[in-house]
Each structure stands twice: as C-alpha cells, then as structure tokens.
C-alpha cells in the first residue's frame, strides 16, 4: 500500500491518494499543471510538505536512496551518462532479464550500443527496463510512451501490467493519452489540476 498524504505543490490543493498492491493509477492533466512536480515529491527529489507511506513506514524512516530504490521514478527524458548502454546495467543483465529486453524489442547487442546514438524512443524503453530490474515496490512513469509508436506503446503497457501482477507492485502512470490511461488504469484514473487530484469522469 502506498499512501500519499497532504503533499503540497505550489498552486495546487494538497494531494491525498492511496494505491493498493497490484494497482495502477493513471494521472493526466494540462502541461505544466504539476504532474512531474508531484512525482518528484513522491520520490523525495524536491523539498515538499506532506508525507508518503509505503505500508506503514513513512518516507522519512528510509534514507533518501533506499526510498528511491523502493519508489522509482522513470522521468520523461532519461539520462545515459556512460559511453555504452551496457555500462548502465549490472553485469550479466541480459542473461537474467532476456525476456524483458526481448519484449521491448532488444537483442543482446543492445548492451554494446553507443548511448549517444540511441533514439529517444529506444532510450525511453531502455529506461523502463533499467528501472524494473531493480524491482521497485512502486514504479512512477512520467509519460513513458510519448516517443513510441502504437505497437511499442502496447508492448510497454503489457510489460508494466505483467510487472504489477507478478510482483504485487504499484504504478502511477502519468500521460496524455486518455484511451491508454483508461486501459492501464481501469478504475483509478485521475486528473490533476489546481483543485488537486480528481477522479476522471468516464
């Protein structure tokens, strides 16, 4: 259970939300309405008021980095700082997670690709794999399919829902595509505005 309590972001009503194990919450809202700031507050990357509980433990009972190992944010634009893709992953990652790579359309040679030459769509899919192999309890996805075509978007959707089911994890999926959000977050689709988080009308 993830419990978001009274997170305050300037210009927005305090945000409360709880997410059950195995649940995916979809959030949409106008550009600049504070979606990314909300996600950054949940992973404790910015100073904020309010608290977030994982189970019955407050984020303050974790150190910053253990909290972020448990609650992992995949930002809209991922960063790759080493020369090759493989250096960003632990050793033998392809042997352990080959299905994960293959589901999103990568073969073993992806690990030797030059980071600088990857397209934004490739980086976006690889960033999701990089986050998932750490097995976070909560996965926060900030517009995870903006650079992907319809087919790859569907692949990401099914990968994320498989991860949810297999690990009893939790997901907050931020995006703009209403049809997609209704698919991934069947009963938990919200919109964010200055009034706070509202259940989206069907």
């Amino acid at each position, binding site marked *: 259970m993830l419990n978001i309590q009274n997170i305050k972001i300037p210009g927005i009503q305090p945000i409360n939300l709880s997410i059950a194990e195995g649940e995916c919450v979809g959030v949409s809202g106008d550009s600049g309405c504070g979606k990314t700031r909300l996600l950054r507050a949940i992973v404790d990357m910015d100073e904020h008021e309010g608290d977030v509980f994982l189970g019955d433990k407050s984020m303050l009972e974790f150190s910053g980095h253990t909290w*972020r190992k448990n609650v992992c944010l*995949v930002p809209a634009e*991922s*960063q790759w700082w080493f020369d090759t893709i493989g250096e960003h992953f632990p050793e033998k990652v392809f042997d352990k997670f080959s299905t994960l790579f293959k589901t999103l359309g990568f073969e073993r040679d992806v690990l030797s690709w030059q980071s600088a030459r990857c397209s934004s769509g490739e980086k976006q899919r690889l960033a999701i794999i*990089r986050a998932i192999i750490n097995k976070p309890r909560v996965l926060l996805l900030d517009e995870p399919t903006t650079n992907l075509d319809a087919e790859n978007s569907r692949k990401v959707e099914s990968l994320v829902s498989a991860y949810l089911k297999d690990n009893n994890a939790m997901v907050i999926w931020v995006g703009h595509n209403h049809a997609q959000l209704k698919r991934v977050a069947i009963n938990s689709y919200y919109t964010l505005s200055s009034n706070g988080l509202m259940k989206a009308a069907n």
Partner: protein
Amino acid sequence: MRELISLSSYDLMLASLLVLALAGVSTRLRLGIGLQLIIAACRTTAQLLFVGLILKKVFEHAELHWIALITLVMLVVASWEILARQKRKIKSWWGFGVSASSLVVSSFLITLIALFFIIKTDPWYTPQYTIPLLGMLLGNTMNGIALGMDRFVQTAWQQRMVIEQRLMLGQTAMEAIREIRNESMRAGMMPIINAMAAAGIVSLPGMMTGQILAGSEPIEAVKYQIMIMFLITAGTGFGVMAALHFLSKHLFDDRERLRFDHILLIKET
C-alpha cells in the same frame, strides 16, 4: 661560497628600460597593451618593495605574534583568490570557509610538519624559513584547489540531470557524484604532477634558481627544491581532497537531494 652581487637601483632601472621599450613598441603598433604593462610593472615594484620592507622588519623582530599575523593575512588573501577564480559564483562566506579550511590542511599543516620534523628550525617559527615556505605552499596549493573546485562545480552543474537520474535509480549521493569528484581531483593535481615531471629538464624551478643565484651549492639548492616539490604535492593533494569533500557533502541535503542552492548564488525558480 661566492659573494652575492648586490643589485643597485641603477641596475633595476636598466631592467625596467626593457619593459618600457616593450611598452613603447606595443603602443606604436597599437597593440593596446602598453598602459596595462606600465601599471602592472609599477604594481609589482611597489608590492614587492612593501613586502621586502615588512619582511626586513619581521626578520629583525622574530616574534611569534607578528609572524602569525602575516600568515593569517596570507591565508585570507589566498582564500579570496580561490573564490575569485570560480566561474560559477559560490556563496561567499561558505565558500570562504571551504577555501580557508582546505588551505589550512594543505599549507599550514604541511608547513608545520616541515618546520618541526624536516628542517627542524630553532625556534620553529624562524621567519626566514616560515614565511617563504608557507608562501610557496599557499601559492601552489591555492592553484590546485581553485582548479579542482572550479572543475567540480562546473561539471556537476552541467551534469545535474545525470546526477538526479542516478539518484532516482537509488544510488547514494556519493555514488552519484563519484566520477565527477575523481575527475576534479585529477584536474586539481595535474599542474603539480606536470611540474614534477618537467622539473630540471624543461624548467629550472624558481626557488632553486634563486638559491643558486644567491650563491648556494647547486646540490643544496636541489635538495631544498625536491623537498618543496614533495610538500607542494602532498599539500595540493590533501587540500583538493578536503575542498571536494566539503563541496560534495554540501551539494546534497540529508534526503540525498541535489541542492545547488546550498553552494551557489542562484535564484530558485
């Protein structure tokens, strides 16, 4: 030992004619550097004469409190100089504290070690040794610390997105900054490593040259120079390490968030 040939004012005037000639030629060629040259030459004359007079006084009255006062002034000036060389402006008082404490580690402690255990001067604060030694250490380690700090802040700023990405993947603050810290350490140490490698072959170090001109045996001068080189290397290394330690500790808060507002003068948006 040879007698030292004393320079008269007339001798110095002859040397100054060379600078004047250069200034004249550059004005003639409209290189726009003539006036600057004259001002700098005047400054160097005035400043060095002033220091010479002070040193003369201090050498005559070798009292600890006067020496302490002079070294304190040297420390303050060197600390401000480090801050002045930063491309991104560091918060003044905090930055001053970082530079000053790094310089204390790099220069003061090393000078004390040299005075007590290596040269064994008597009394230990004998100004003929203390002040030139400290001056040489401060000048060189200041360089290294300024370079290391500048590289650290610049690189971390350029790569702030990468640092945050690494934090989001659950890395500790120290893991997220490690490569930048190592690179800055290297940048700070490069000048002295190069100087050691080139010493004697490409360049004759200034101190050694001075001693030889003053009539010392070359081997004696060389021994002093080697000791100074080692002191500077150790001082720069520990000084840069200390400065990077303070910077990287303060760059993150207790929740391991990246906080440039802690170290830089920037407005939060």
